[in-house]
């Protein structure tokens, strides 16, 4: 059983007890524990179930590489699935539940999969569940989905908040172990602006556990001193609980800082995502120990040797009382020595190497530990915890020589450098035969903006399993020069570590393991991928490592193969009879370990999820029944709904009142662009399809804009202010787009033309005063002369209306007598109030966008976004009157000459009127006879806008119809989606006041 030792534990504070819950059981640990160490301290060997076979799973590692110990953490708004117990700092009141089992962790029905394992090899689902067809969706898939999936789905809205932080520096050092500390020190002393990141809460990495001396002092002491030196440097920033998550192109780095995960009660953001721009990056991310592939290596109690000593030294926790150590390298002996010194029993060290190891072996032997060389684990006995191991010859096929009782197995298969961050942007790897691992190829780094490498690797991450500090020192000096600084004089600290003999690569234990053993030798603990699965994949021709990964799911678990990838591709290489480097690795993708979606989104949630653009009358609109319609980031009132009204009622009321009395429209969102300069007229002639240069100052003209590809993109009224100044109105969505469009042409094509553009959209509150009583209302306020004589239709004038400086445009989009009045935005609300007051006697009411749409439709005016959809040209809409014949060029002219654009069969704008007065469904199509070559029903037109017109008391619509204008009176059929067919007559699109008498009074 695993237990808390009487003393020891450099990271825990035995005076601070912490109560926590696991699967409803109340347990205690100490401050400084991880959830994993606390669980082990409470003899929780079984902590979860595997993905596919639901095999019992225990803690196997002590850090980010842990594939097994994943839990559901907390509940409600702070619930989080798949939390890694080995990196979850224990806090008082923590509650966790184990995952992926039913009904309970101890008794899991899903475990039946395990006994069926031989019928469920890699990729079995590709070969079966094929018949009968409906079964996949309805029977097989639901079962598979239910048994997969690990953690529970969160239900509640996230109770936390998150933020981003932009940071700039010369160098980021990732990893706060001895290599990272030394690298930061060298760069710091050279005067570089350095950010040093450590993913855990502690500095020094493995060194304090693994021992050895630096500068003649114990590693831990050296770490303390160096930290003090770094903290004293103003140009060095240290950040713990902050992981280098992803390296992106051009020296962009994401770092993931966990601010309150260890103290959920604290205020402030939970995570902070650092968005860093740096010249150089040094990854000192260390190395990860590899498991050994022997039968039963997944049974709870079988752990990485390094993890075993981490728990003893850091947390005073023993994973077992009798631990068999199995290794193919000298480092494994450290664990045996550590256990022995902690007073624990180590019945055997099994060293796969015939001749064993060096100094550490002697030290272990001196402690009285029995060491068997050339030996291996043939099989681990046990179910939910280790009972014993069968010892066999490494060279053999696994026949048991003896059985050793134990409750834990510490395995050491050698170390693999953490090369993820080096690889994110394309850094290449080289296979190191001596140390049997991939390490960064310094000659092929990821390239930055300048084409030079921008990532360097230091220490164990660089393959320097010994002499990490010296390696980091040298690496940092090179990087400092790359930054353009001069490294200091100091010499690299000397490291003293016991002499180690080389590792002997062992990819399968024993080497000739029988088939049934290979079927129990796990590579990927979480996804249940075994040696036999990879060999099967190779046999079936999945020769690329990417194929094997996808076919077997090797390395696709939440640890992304941190433990399994190298062992897996070694097995694959062996099966293919090719050297490991030829097989290569899969691609490393960010993030290094999973980061919260919340952190990615940052501050953008709730009120500040996205900007809501407000007009000066926004507040009034909001408190006066506005039913909001998002238009881009703007919000416009769709209608002003009164109590007891439906939205539709309100719209009808607004239309009728505007036609009979007077309505008020908040038109402030319409774009307003000032175009000024000697060439302004010439410029606008190119932008609009019609002639603008001939417009007289004081007058307005409606204009159309097309893209260079010929399609109608915007429209609006242009007012000429003076000889070389125009004010162009755009649609609500158009202001920024058209402004950018103008700047683009001026800057990149006609840069010699003298024109300046400014967007003054928001300078003005623009208010439409619309209806037969509009003039009366304005005259009540007094001020400028707004008579038909002084301000005729399509004219504008500056002046005062009441106390307000105003510009009045005599334009109409409704067919009524109408003024659009612009006043400074800072006085917009006041002017709106004044108009409401003045209009009281005249029955004034505000109206929204839907009433606006209906009134323009009654008049047959097109609406960008309704009649146009990006595929419509002005000619389709009968707007030829707005296309100048005199101009030899304008944007879109050439495009409109293409054969398909001049095709007489193009659908053209008409009015549509249902024979029974009902409203045509929006978006309905008119059918023609027969079907096309693909068996689709032929169509001859479609509805572009359709409304009930309160003015006419019937449904009216506009649409595009093949040869439409020549087919007046013809009745077309528009099938609905519910089987009904609507019949509508082709009519003139102008339904109301065709001669325009009403707007012209």
């Amino acid at each position, binding site marked *: 059983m695993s237990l808390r030792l009487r003393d020891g534990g450099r990271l825990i504070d035995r005076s601070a007890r912490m109560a926590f819950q696991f699967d409803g059981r109340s347990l205690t640990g100490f401050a400084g524990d991880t959830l994993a160490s606390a669980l082990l301290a409470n003899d929780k060997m079984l902590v979860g179930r595997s*993905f596919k076979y639901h095999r019992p799973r225990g803690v196997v590692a002590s850090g980010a590489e842990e594939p097994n110990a994943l839990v559901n953490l907390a509940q409600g708004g702070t619930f989080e*699935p*798949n939390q890694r117990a080995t990196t979850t700092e224990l806090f008082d009141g923590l509650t966790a539940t184990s995952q992926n089992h039913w009904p309970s962790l101890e008794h899991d029905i899903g475990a039946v999969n395990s006994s069926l394992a031989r*019928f469920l*090899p890699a990729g079995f689902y*590709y*070969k*079966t569940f*094929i*018949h009968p*067809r409906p079964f996949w969706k309805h029977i097989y*898939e*639901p079962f598979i*989905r*239910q048994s*997969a*999936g*690990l*953690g529970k789905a*969160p239900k509640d*809205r*996230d109770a936390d908040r998150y933020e981003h932080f932009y940071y700039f520096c010369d160098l980021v050092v990732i990893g706060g172990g001895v290599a990272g500390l030394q690298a930061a020190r060298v760069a710091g002393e050279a005067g570089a602006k350095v950010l040093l990141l450590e993913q855990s809460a502690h500095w020094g990495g493995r060194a304090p556990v693994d021992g050895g001396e630096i500068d003649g002092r114990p590693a831990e002491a050296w770490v303390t001193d160096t930290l003090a030196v770094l903290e004293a440097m103003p140009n060095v920033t240290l950040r713990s609980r902050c992981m280098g998550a*992803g390296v992106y*192109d051009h020296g962009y780095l994401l770092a993931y800082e966990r601010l309150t995960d260890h103290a959920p009660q604290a205020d402030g953001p939970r995570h902070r995502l650092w968005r860093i721009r740096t010249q150089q990056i040094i990854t000192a991310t260390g190395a990860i120990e590899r498991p050994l592939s022997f039968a039963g290596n997944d049974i709870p109690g079988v752990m990485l040797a390094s993890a075993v000593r981490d728990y003893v030294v850091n947390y005073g926790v023993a994973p077992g009382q009798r631990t068999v150590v199995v290794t193919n390298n000298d480092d494994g002996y450290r664990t045996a020595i550590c256990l022995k010194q902690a007073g624990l029993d180590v019945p055997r060290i099994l060293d796969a190497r015939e001749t064993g190891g060096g100094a550490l072996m002697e030290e272990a032997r001196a402690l009285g530990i029995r060491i068997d060389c050339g030996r291996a684990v043939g099989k681990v006995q046990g179910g939910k915890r280790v009972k014993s191991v069968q010892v066999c010859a490494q060279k053999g096929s696994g026949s048991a020589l003896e059985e050793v009782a134990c409750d834990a197995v510490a395995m050491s298969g050698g170390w693999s450098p953490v090369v993820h961050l080096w690889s994110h942007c394309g850094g290449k790897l080289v296979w190191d035969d001596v140390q049997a691992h991939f390490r960064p190829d310094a000659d092929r780094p990821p390239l930055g903006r300048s084409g030079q490498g921008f990532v360097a690797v230091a220490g164990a991450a660089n393959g320097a399993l010994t002499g990490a500090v010296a390696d980091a020192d040298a690496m940092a000096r090179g990087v400092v020069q790359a930054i353009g600084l001069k490294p200091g004089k100091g010499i690299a600290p000397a490291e003293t570590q016991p002499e180690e003999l080389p590792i002997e690569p062992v990819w399968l234990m024993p080497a000739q393991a029988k088939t049934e053993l290979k079927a129990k030798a796990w590579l990927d603990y979480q996804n249940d991928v075994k040696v036999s699965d990879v060999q099967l994949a190779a*046999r*079936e021709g999945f*020769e*690329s490592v990417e194929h094997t990964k*996808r*076919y077997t*799911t090797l390395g696709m678990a*939440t640890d*992304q193969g941190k433990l399994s990838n190298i062992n897996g591709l070694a097995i694959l290489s062996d099966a293919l009879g090719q050297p490991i480097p030829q097989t290569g690795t899969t691609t490393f993708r*960010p993030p290094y370990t*999973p980061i*919260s*979606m919340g952190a*990615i*989104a*940052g501050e953008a949630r709730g009120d500040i*999820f*996205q900007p809501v653009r407000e007009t000066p009358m926004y507040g009034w609109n909001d408190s006066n029944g506005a039913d909001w*319609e*998002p238009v881009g980031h703007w919000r416009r009132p769709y209608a002003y709904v009164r109590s007891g009204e439906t939205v539709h009622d309100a719209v009808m009321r607004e239309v009728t009142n505007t036609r009979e009395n007077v309505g008020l429209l908040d038109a402030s969102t319409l774009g307003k662009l000032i175009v000024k300069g000697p060439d302004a007229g010439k410029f606008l002639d190119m932008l609009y399809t019609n002639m603008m240069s001939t417009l007289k100052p004081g007058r307005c003209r409606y204009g159309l804009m097309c893209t260079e590809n*010929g399609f109608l993109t915007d429209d609006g009224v242009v007012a000429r202010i003076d000889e070389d100044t125009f004010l162009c109105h755009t649609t609500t969505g158009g202001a920024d787009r058209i402004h950018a469009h103008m700047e683009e042409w001026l800057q990149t094509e006609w840069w010699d033309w003298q024109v300046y553009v400014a967007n003054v959209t928001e300078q003005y509150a623009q208010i439409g005063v619309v209806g037969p009583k509009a003039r009366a209302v304005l005259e009540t306020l007094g001020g400028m002369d707004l008579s038909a004589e002084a301000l005729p239709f399509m004219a504008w004038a500056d002046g005062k209306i009441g106390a307000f400086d105003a510009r009045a445009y005599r334009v109409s989009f409704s067919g009524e007598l109408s003024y659009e009045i612009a006043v400074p935005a800072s006085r917009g609300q006041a002017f709106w109030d004044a108009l409401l007051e003045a209009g009281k006697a005249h029955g004034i009411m505000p109206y929204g966008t839907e009433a606006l749409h209906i009134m323009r439709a009654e008049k047959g005016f097109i609406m960008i976004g*309704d009649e146009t*959809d*990006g595929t419509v040209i002005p000619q389709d809409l009968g707007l030829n009157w707005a296309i100048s014949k005199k101009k030899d060029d304008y944007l879109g002219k050439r*495009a409109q000459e*293409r054969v398909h654009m001049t095709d007489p069969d193009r659908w053209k704008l008409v009015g549509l009127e249902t024979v029974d007065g009902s409203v045509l*469904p*929006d*978006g309905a199509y008119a059918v023609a006879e027969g079907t096309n*070559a*693909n068996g*689709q*029903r032929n*169509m001859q037109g479609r509805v572009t806008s359709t409304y009930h017109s309160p003015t006419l008391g019937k449904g009216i619509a506009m649409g595009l119809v093949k040869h439409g204008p020549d087919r007046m009176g013809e009745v077309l059929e528009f*099938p609905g*989606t519910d089987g009904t067919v609507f019949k509508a007559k082709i009519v003139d699109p102008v339904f109301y006041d065709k001669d325009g008498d009403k707007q012209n009074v």
Partner: protein
Amino acid sequence: MKRYSAFAIAREALRHHSGWERAWASPEPKRKYDVIIVGAGGHGLATAYYLGKNFGITNVAVLEKGWLGGGNTGRNTTIIRSNYLQDASAAIYEKSRSLYEDLSQDLNYNVMFSPRGVMMLAQTHHEVRGYQRTAHANALQGVATEYIGPERVKELCPIICIDGPRYPVLGALWQPRGGTARHDAVAWGYARACSAMGMDIIQKCEVTGVRSEGGKVRGVETSKGPIECDKLGVVVAGHSGVLAEMAGFRLPIESVALQALVSEPIKPCMDVVVMANTVHGYMSQSDKGEMVIGGGADGYNNYTQRGSFHHIEETVRALIETFPMISRLKMLRQWGGIVDMTGDRSPILSKTPLEGCFINCGWGTGGFKAIPGSGWGMAQLMATGASPLTAEFSLDRFKEGRFIDESVAAGVAH
């Protein structure tokens, strides 16, 4: 070739699966083939498969510079739908979707087509109108879709927040028989079937040049030497520009990186595919339990399979607004693929200026769902010189101004 079945597995289980044969052969190239397809992705393999199945053309080589299915086939978010607006799109995507229905049986390979339903959320009035229009068009195009209200949306996908303050869900375009499939399996299944018909799938064979004589294609130069052919099909999403350059013509295409990401796996919580185009995000849950999320495409040419972080940021931000529960999930992995963007964002399946050379490209962000239909149409085009499925997607449409624009109904091509 041994058939796959539960019985075959049981039989093999008894002998520790020692008897499984290679899923596809791995031969050296012959001197000459009737047809060479460049690109062993889904589209290329499907083209080869239907050349054999529908036209009896089996003297075919499929050349792949990397490993088969290693391009966008293996990097996409596996959405399958056909609720497109324009006739030409609806035709080829619906043909494709209908072929997916029986693909597992047809290939004797479980591609895990899961018609769990696809919904496209309408979160603005503009989208409401766009999707109502699409629903009308689909009804006439033989595509089964319906426009549904917010309550139905909530019923079909309980984790959606339909009354979000910013973009309330106003409705959705619902295609009940849309869904997902296992992307790798589609490539592997076609490859296995092609191999069984005697076709040569040649991996790690890079095409370095196109041989022609008198304006007619003669063969290709490859890293494994020259290979002759009568007809050449170029189906190399992401690298079409490079191949076209070899063949001496230019395409209306730009290659950009498109990104996607997955969360850590969780128990089933979402049984449909949801696309929220106003906020540029779409999401489904894989059989493994991961939330599969599609991100945006960069606006600049890029041949690295990496994109820019801010697209991921924008997508995740938007999806959290629509699916608040994902805020506490973690991103497990992000990646990018290279996609061809054409002038109208619709694909090109066409003859080319070089006689005998055909091209299939420009699927942008929407290629996976089209694999069977694209292969079907492309095979017909290459075998007979014309196909109603591909007619509208010809290269000359750009010159004529005859675009196939799907963006008009707020639809996107994912």
